[in-house]
């Protein structure tokens, strides 16, 4: 099919270009669709669940999927579908909170380190090095273990572990951005360092941070589920995918749907964020812009 060239000649704003770039990537569109439906599911949870996610029905334990219980019931007779839908809320909350905290704090620290340089740079980056020397999940496990079980502590632990990558990437971008001509020009008209940092240097690091945040959502949700699986995160009766896996583990042979569906939910969510992140990376990278042959 031939594309209409005149329409492309119109200068479209940057955002539209990114959306265009994203549209060309099928997987990214699928990822975006899944993410949007997950968000809708989380928001509309009370209206779309078929059953109460916490109410116990001891007479209806370990039912296989049926019309009444589309994904079956768990060992305490709770509807798995309803619990999964409510679990979306928990996972997305954890993801947004942790990614928000880590992306903002990591970016600010990376910006400070890269722009100011010297001893401040050394201190921040050595802390980053130390934190990165540990495997992330293990360190989060230790921190969450020390703080005690609970969803808040898991978020805290993941935040402590997660900011380092943002700091590193942002610092790298800042180091190259601060040598650019427009930074010198901004100095020459008397702009203050603080102003230059936030107006001219930080935007240079924005697109990698957006990509990392999207990919980070997947990582965070997966890690939070892992910690919950180990009993450190969400506490019963809160419906959480990781802890659902954990409680279903004992019934692997008699009722495999207990772990199949939460597992699938985690996998689909993480995949969706990864697809979206990959797509965004391609769409936001100006170097990969294709030239149109006429």
């Amino acid at each position, binding site marked *: 099919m031939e594309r209409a060239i005149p329409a492309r000649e119109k*200068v479209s704003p940057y955002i539209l270009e990114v959306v265009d770039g994203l549209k060309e990537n099928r997987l990214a569109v699928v990822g975006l669709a899944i993410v949007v439906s997950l968000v809708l599911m989380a928001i509309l949870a009370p209206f779309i669940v078929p059953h109460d996610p916490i109410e116990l029905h001891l007479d209806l334990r370990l039912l296989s999927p049926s019309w009444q219980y589309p994904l079956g019931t768990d060992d305490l007779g709770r509807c798995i579908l309803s619990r999964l839908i409510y679990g979306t809320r928990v996972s997305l909350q954890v993801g947004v909170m942790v990614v928000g905290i880590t992306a903002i704090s990591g970016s600010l620290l990376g910006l400070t380190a890269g722009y100011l340089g010297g001893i401040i740079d050394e201190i921040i980056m050595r802390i980053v090095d130390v934190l990165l020397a540990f495997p992330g999940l293990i360190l989060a496990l230790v921190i969450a273990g020390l703080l005690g079980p609970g969803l808040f502590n898991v978020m805290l632990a993941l935040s402590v572990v997660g900011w380092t990558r943002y700091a590193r990437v942002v610092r790298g971008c800042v180091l190259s951005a601060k040598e*650019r*001509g*427009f930074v*010198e*020009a*901004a*100095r*020459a*008209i*008397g*702009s*203050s360092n603080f*102003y230059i940092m936030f*107006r*001219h240097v930080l*935007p*240079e690091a924005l697109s990698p941070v957006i990509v990392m945040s999207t990919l980070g959502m997947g990582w965070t949700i997966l890690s939070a589920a892992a910690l919950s699986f180990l009993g450190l995160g969400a506490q019963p009766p809160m419906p959480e995918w990781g802890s659902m896996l954990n409680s279903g583990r004992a019934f692997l042979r008699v009722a495999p749907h207990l772990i199949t569906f939460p597992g699938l939910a985690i996998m689909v969510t993480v995949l969706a964020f990864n697809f979206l992140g990959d797509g965004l990376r391609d769409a936001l990278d100006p170097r990969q812009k294709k030239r149109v042959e006429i």
Partner: protein
Amino acid sequence: MDLLQISNLYVNFTTKAGVVRASDGVNLEIKQGESLCLVGESGCGKTIVALGIMRLLPQNAQISGKIWFKGKELLSLGKEEMRRIRGREIAMIFEQPATCLDPVFTVGDQIAEAMRVHERCSGKESKEKAIDLMEMVEIPSPQKRFKQYPHEFSGGMQQRAMIAIALSYNPSLLIADEPMTFLDVTIQAQIMELLKDLVSKFRTSLLLITHDLGVAAEMCDGVAVMYAGEIVEKGRVSEVFKYPKHPYTKALLGAISNDGLKPIKGSVPELTSLPSGCKFHPRCPLVRDVCREARPEMKNGVRCHLWEKS
């Protein structure tokens, strides 16, 4: 009194290759409303002098000497005081306008931004002023151009935008570091005219850095010829270009004479290992023994042994 007086400006860089003497005792004066041209080959330290005045040198630079501007000694000012002078009192235009505009903001936004650096100014007010400035530097249809990004501007238009930014506070001194080098010849002439008009209109002093002697002759009252980190000759443009004294100035002028190109033999010495005596002596056609040994002093506007005697 001079608007700007530089005395004994030394700028050294400590590098792995040794100490680079980028500015080796430079003395310069610019009067109110005067335009001075700093000419010389690439790598002789012209830009370093300009950046020294702005105090925007790289971190590994050691700077000493005195720079008097409106009764203040710039090198002894605090960082914050210096920041208030930049842009408001001394503005600078750089060589490559394309890299000096931030690609993520519209050009109009960046001109308006300059207005907000030193004074509180509402968004609307600064936008109006920015459009006025764009008209002043003759950017056609400024309302439309205000919303465009730097990549939608041609090189000449970008440089006009940079001039608008530089003149936003009506500074007393404008430093233009090779503002025409990256432009087409026809555009060069336009920008030159524009700068000349604006400078005389606002009675702004101009320090023009260039290696284009034609531009220098056209635009400036005074000229200072720089070679390997020092001023070798200075004076009125009309005198220096008509009756050059220093062999280097002669060679520079001769290089573009009507008899075809006559390159100066050799190249600017490495600033890490400068020759003894007169720095120009390895390339000088009139070299004598004394030139190899003693460094000539600046006398009667020229730094040359041949002129000390006569």
